[in-house]
């Protein structure tokens, strides 16, 4: 049992160290970063902002990790966010109850996932192409739902999902942490994780060993759709309006980046949800750090790109091999 724990610690160590380094860097350029106070009945401060603003990418990263573990990719999550946010805002404006609104918009997310899953698993279309379809069409669908405008609502119960508090934390933080724990438990306490990895590494061999690869693939895309729906609901609730043009725009790329920074190979196979979630926080820490640092906005993307590049280079197999050799050389007299 101890071995498992040690292996887990080794697995997520690079991500934790990276997060620590990024946070320390922010602390240097913005000394007030670590000030945390309690205001309006919740923790308040930049670290809390990172957890809060990172919620959409963290949620997307959960689904994306599973999809990538099967050797696929889901480019449609940003568009699915827009669709589900648009549906949620429209329904709440039309006077539906909150539970009905949530059920219907989460259902829409599942439906989007089902669509992707069928294209990939049943029709055998390459995942990048299959999900590209919904990525392109999805934003259009969202605009049809909102009729091209920002659908603003004033429903405090719904809005609290985005900007309310729970247990002294912003609600989105509680949502993504719970979703992450739940997903990890489901995947690791059942055999789901292992079967997903098997399909990702060798689909044919898994099928011949009796793994229901088709059902599994459809399932992971549906989970990804569900995660995107949650992210879309949070974003919509947060700004009290559904912005079909901008909700989740390019977030699929951040989610993929989070998974990659989390150390899961894009080729599929072994994955770690926790590492992906830390990856999502690393990316959000960079974003928030740039905002509080006060650089001119023209530098935002360049700074982000440089930091991400540095992280990926440090995690690259070539450099890791060198590090192992180095430590061994030092360790042996």
């Amino acid at each position, binding site marked *: 049992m101890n071995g498992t724990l040690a292996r887990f610690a080794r697995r997520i160590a690079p991500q934790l160290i990276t997060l620590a380094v990024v946070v320390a860097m922010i602390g240097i350029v913005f000394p007030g970063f670590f000030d945390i106070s309690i205001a309006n009945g919740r923790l308040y401060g930049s670290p809390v902002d990172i957890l809060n*603003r990172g919620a959409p990418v963290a949620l997307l990263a959960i689904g994306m990790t599973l999809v990538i573990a099967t050797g696929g990719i889901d480019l449609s999550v940003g568009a699915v966010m827009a669709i589900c946010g648009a549906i949620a805002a429209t329904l709440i404006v039309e006077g539906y109850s909150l539970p009905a609104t949530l059920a219907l918009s989460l259902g829409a997310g599942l439906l989007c996932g089902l669509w992707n899953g069928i294209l990939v698993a049943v029709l055998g279309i390459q995942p990048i192409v299959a999900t590209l379809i919904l990525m392109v069409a999805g934003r259009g669908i969202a605009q049809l739902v909102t009729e*091209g405008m920002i659908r603003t609502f004033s429903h405090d119960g719904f809005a609290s999902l985005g*900007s309310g508090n729970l247990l002294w934390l912003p609600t989105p933080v509680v949502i993504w942490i719970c979703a992450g724990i739940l997903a990890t438990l489901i995947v690791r306490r059942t055999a789901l994780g292992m079967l997903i990895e098997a399909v990702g590494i060798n689909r044919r061999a898994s099928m011949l060993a009796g793994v229901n690869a088709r059902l599994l693939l459809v399932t992971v895309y549906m989970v990804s759709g569900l995660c995107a729906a949650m992210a879309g609901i949070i974003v919509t609730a947060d*700004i009290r*309006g559904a912005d079909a043009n*901008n909700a989740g725009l390019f977030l699929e790329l951040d989610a993929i980046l989070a998974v990659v920074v989390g150390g899961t190979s894009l080729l599929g196979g072994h994955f770690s949800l926790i590492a992906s979630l830390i990856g999502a926080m690393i990316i959000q820490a960079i974003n928030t750090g740039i*905002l509080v640092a*006060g650089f001119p906005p023209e530098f935002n993307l360049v700074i982000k790109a440089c930091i991400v590049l540095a992280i990926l280079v440090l995690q690259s197999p070539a450099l890791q091999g060198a590090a192992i050799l180095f430590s061994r050389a030092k360790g042996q007299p």
Partner: protein
Amino acid sequence: MFAKTLLGASLLASMTILSSAALAQTIGFSQIGSESGWRAAETTITKQQAEKRGIDLKFSDAQQKQENQIKALRSFIAQGVDAILVAPVVATGWDAVLKEAKEAEIPVILLDRMVDSDKDLYLTAVGSDLVHEGEVAGKWLVDDAAGKECNVVELQGTTGSSPAIDRKKGFEQGIAGAANIKIIRSQTGDFTRAKGKEVMESFLKAENGGKNICALYAHNDDMAVGAIQAIKEAGLKPGTDIKIVSIDAVPDIFQAMAAGEANATVELTPNMAGPAFDALKAFKDNGTMPPKFIQTESKLYTQKDDPAKEYEARKGLGY
């Protein structure tokens, strides 16, 4: 064969002249698409304005594609409309089709955006002056602060876009000379509500929980609406603790103003067609050549201007 065609063409031409003189005008309108609420409102208002003047408006939605717009313009020319309104999706590549319109003696009026073609190729362009909008916002803040020290944070539009550059420049011109007003932080909010909120949160953290901030200037209303929520969640009163001035005048900002949470907005009017139709009428009636650029009014709205009523008036326009 040739003679027949010629005859047909001249017949058609004479009929066109006849109809323009006697019957209602037919005007073609090539719209970019409906990428934003403002654009949708512009379409709605153009249709309303045409109806009010008894103009038969032929509407064509280009869905963000220049080739669709050029096709639409050619079809308008072939139909022999009396005039063409076009909101060009890009600035270049219009020379050929504009020449065709000119040869067919159909005046073209540009709405909202400019093109890089020879000025002779179109009658006039109706649009807003982005720098001026920023300047109006800046002047309002100078008046409102009335000499008191005021630290301003700025939410810019998408980095590198012309509204972001011009509205920033205009605002800086507006506050030039007022030494009491200083821009202490400026960051992009990508014109979106979500980014506006996120960036405002970071401003509040970085500036002593917002206590250093006296006013927010946002390059559009959407970002301001997001920022207002961030300010509220930080336990401050938007509109009071932090003054809010932004640009566009979309319905939601009037709602915020009515609630006392925003202070001022500068209108980017979606009514570009009204001045265009007026100029066209003057040109057709007595040959008055309009100026090459008709600047729409950048009207300032504050809490005194009955924001609740403005909200009601605008909410049906498709914003």
